């Protein structure tokens, strides 16, 4: 064996750069009004959500700056030490100095004509309500300390690291989600729990301690157990494993079924809205995640489903009024969606990547404009849309409120999730995956690319049309303006943030990104900013998403680097021969 080179060290210069980036991010979120907007949301005592945001930015920069470099082939494994903490401190200090400068400038010069959000109130928040010089110094110091703490986090063992990070996140989440928890505890008849956890604003001391203890200990003691349990499950004999899986599914279904009764009308409404997006995200995941076809016009199929349902069920649909029930209309919805899928899929069969994205983007707009056009007004009513789409009825039971709709939507979401799972583990699923990774090799290895692509488009279209059908009956009317490109982009964000091709990831992504802004109104204004930032972050740092599909985690980043280093060395050896 050859001797190993000394371990690579963190670069302090890079740490300062990281810190400066964090400082710029902090200034940016201040200047666009995020900090001030979040200041009314109290987490605990006098700590508001805006402080939590800034804490996250600076501690995060310290943590990032202190991250030990990757171990490369031929080097010793890097060990975190004083130097890493120092890197964290440097990053925090650099960012803090930038922020302090910003406070000083914003406090003395009037920047409001250019940045309307840089207000005296903002300065007061950033300067902890002190006078300018002292406040700026305090802010810089706080940032430096946070950077140091973030850097120090690199020294603790992995398990503890996760527990600390998780505790922080859950405390914030609990404080933010008071509005969600209150109706839940009311529904369960345990309002005393929320009374204990919360003060008039934010968490109470008891609540803080309780959440911290519970979350920390579950992270700390359950770490590894989950994976072990899964491993144990996989070792069970086939028939017993099936029983366990079925039992698990039954419990989950019961739980999901009980939700609307427990959480009440408002939350059911939010969940229904998120559920429709989730349904479509699952559909788009088949197109983009499985088959690798970047479709930016996915909203077209949503519109087709909604309009088909409206035309066939509404008593005042302009041209024909068959007045079918929702269920009787469903086969026609599936049929039109499949035809639409083939119509969009066929012309783009030979296109790849960016070209495909641009052309499908066009198709999405064409669909909207067609429904809006005078030409089709006799059928679709142009801008007036189609009203009085009836509620879904199951025999004599009519689904009326959001609590009923929750069940209809849940049914279709479960169906889409099952279909995704079934297709992923099948002949066509493998063909899609192969096509995504290398289209020409997939074709050379026997995949009929035309059929595989059209199937992806058709199945994606059908799932989106279910979303449209549910949407039309839930709202009770359809208008062309609803089906804008923003819908396509939102769904794409859900899919990418959730982790391309990972079904649980897409589900979590949809709930978090659609339901959260709905619950926390102050997010609404920054929704697309946050989506954009998340997208960039995901593309750069975690191409595998929040919950990567299992096949993607198998490939550890570090291993890849080692592999490449090895390959390069091999290639060099050959050159030499």
């Amino acid at each position, binding site marked *: 064996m050859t001797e190993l080179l000394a371990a690579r060290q963190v670069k302090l210069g890079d740490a300062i750069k990281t810190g400066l980036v964090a400082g710029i991010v902090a200034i940016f979120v201040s200047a666009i009004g995020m900090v001030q907007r979040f200041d009314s949301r109290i987490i605990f005592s006098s700590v508001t959500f805006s402080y939590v945001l800034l804490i996250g930015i600076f501690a995060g920069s310290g943590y990032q700056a202190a991250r030990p470099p990757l171990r490369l082939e031929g080097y010793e494994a890097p060990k975190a030490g004083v130097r890493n903490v120092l890197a964290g401190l440097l990053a925090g200090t650099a960012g803090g100095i930038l922020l302090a400068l910003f406070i000083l400038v914003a406090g003395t010069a009037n920047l409001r004509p250019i940045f309307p959000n840089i207000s005296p109130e903002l300065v007061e928040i950033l300067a902890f309500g002190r006078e300018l010089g002292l406040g700026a110094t305090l802010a810089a110091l706080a940032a430096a300390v946070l950077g140091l703490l973030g850097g120090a986090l690199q020294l603790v063992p992995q398990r503890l690291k996760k527990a600390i990070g998780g505790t922080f996140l859950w405390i914030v989440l609990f404080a933010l989600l008071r509005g969600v928890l209150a109706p839940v505890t009311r529904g369960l008849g345990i309002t005393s729990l929320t009374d204990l956890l919360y003060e008039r604003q934010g968490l109470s001391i008891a609540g803080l301690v309780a959440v911290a203890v519970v979350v920390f200990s579950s992270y700390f003691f359950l770490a590894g157990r989950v994976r072990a349990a899964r491993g144990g499950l996989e070792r069970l004999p086939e028939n017993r494993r099936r029983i366990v899986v079925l039992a698990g599914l039954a419990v989950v279904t019961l739980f999901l079924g009980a939700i609307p009764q427990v959480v009440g009308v408002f939350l059911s409404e939010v969940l229904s809205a998120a559920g429709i997006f989730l349904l479509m995200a699952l559909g788009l995941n088949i197109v983009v995640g499985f088959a690798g076809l970047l479709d930016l016009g996915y909203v077209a199929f949503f519109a087709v489903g909604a309009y088909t349902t409206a035309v066939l069920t509404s008593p005042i649909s302009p041209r024909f009024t068959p007045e079918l029930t929702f269920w009787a209309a469903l086969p026609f919805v599936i049929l039109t969606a499949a035809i639409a899928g083939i119509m969009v899929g066929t012309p783009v069969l030979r296109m790849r990547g960016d070209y495909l994205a641009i052309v499908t983007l066009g198709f999405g707009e064409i669909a909207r404009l067609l429904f809006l056009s005078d030409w089709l007004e006799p059928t679709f009513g142009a801008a007036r849309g189609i009203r009085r789409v009836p509620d879904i009825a199951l025999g004599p039971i009519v689904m009326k409120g959001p609590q009923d709709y929750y069940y209809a939507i849940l049914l279709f979401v479960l169906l889409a999730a*099952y*279909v995704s799972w079934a297709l992923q583990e099948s002949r066509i699923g493998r063909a899609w995956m192969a096509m995504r990774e290398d289209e020409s*090799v997939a074709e050379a290895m026997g995949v009929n*690319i035309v059929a595989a692509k059209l199937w992806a488009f058709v199945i994606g279209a059908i799932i989106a049309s279910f979303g449209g059908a549910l949407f039309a009956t839930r709202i009770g009317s359809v208008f062309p303006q609803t089906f804008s490109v923003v819908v396509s982009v939102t769904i794409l964000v859900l899919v990418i943030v959730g982790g391309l091709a990972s079904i649980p990831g897409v589900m979590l992504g949809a709930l978090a990104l659609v339901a959260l802004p709905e619950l926390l109104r102050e997010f609404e204004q920054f929704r697309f900013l946050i989506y954009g930032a998340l997208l960039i972050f995901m593309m750069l740092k975690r191409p595998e998403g929040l919950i990567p599909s299992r096949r993607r985690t198998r490939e550890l980043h570090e291993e890849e680097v080692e592999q490449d280093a090895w390959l390069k060395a091999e290639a060099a050896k*050959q050159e030499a021969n």
Partner: protein
Amino acid sequence: MLLEVTGLSKVFGGVTAIDDLDIAVGEGEIVSIIGPNGAGKTTLFNLMTGMILADGGKILFDGRDIVGMRPSQILHLGIARTFQNVRLFPEMSVRENVMLARHCRTKSGVLRSILRLPSFRKEEEETKKRAEEALGFFGKRLVGYRFDQPAASLSYANRRRLEIARAMASDPRILLLDEPTAGMNPRETKELTELVGKIREEKSITIVMIEHDMQVVRGVSDRVIVLDYGRKIAEGSYAEIAGNERVIEAYLGTKATT
């Protein structure tokens, strides 16, 4: 003849990569194709598998002209290949890479997959079994825990082996190997040479191989075809080729210019 190429030509821009080429391969043969870099060997494989379209000429496989067919159809007929610059599906597992090659020999559609009918389960089991068998052909190298590893995690030599396993799993009648020993060390090269013979003996698959390593060429080929500038400049047993003036000239000529 199992495979008969007549008057084949392919021009890229101004470059004539294949120039009025005639080649024939009989059932059960192992034929090596050699020639300097840029002679058009890989292009010939691309034409034979339908990955690019010929400008003229015919490629008869078992009496049928396959020019103009889609690559997937050609694989279905029984021509499988490997690539000079290994092209696996890096994120798919080793087993899945090989299972994919069974695509043309199986038929479960979307509906059957969703309904998980018994026929689907049976076919899926069978596909898995066949894939593992194909991987088993390489001894212990690609079996066991390796089944579930992503193809990207394999070493270079194993990636080449996996590519051969993938091609074999499609039950081809003829296997086209593009520089199968490139980047391998002498021991691995020797092993692979033996393997090529074994594939023919045990699976009765006809083999056409592009190869630079003359030891390998001498070791396995029944016949050697030499290409230069897209034309066949010599053909015969290894011994005949080795003494051929034009062949030596072609090799020396390019060495002198590059």
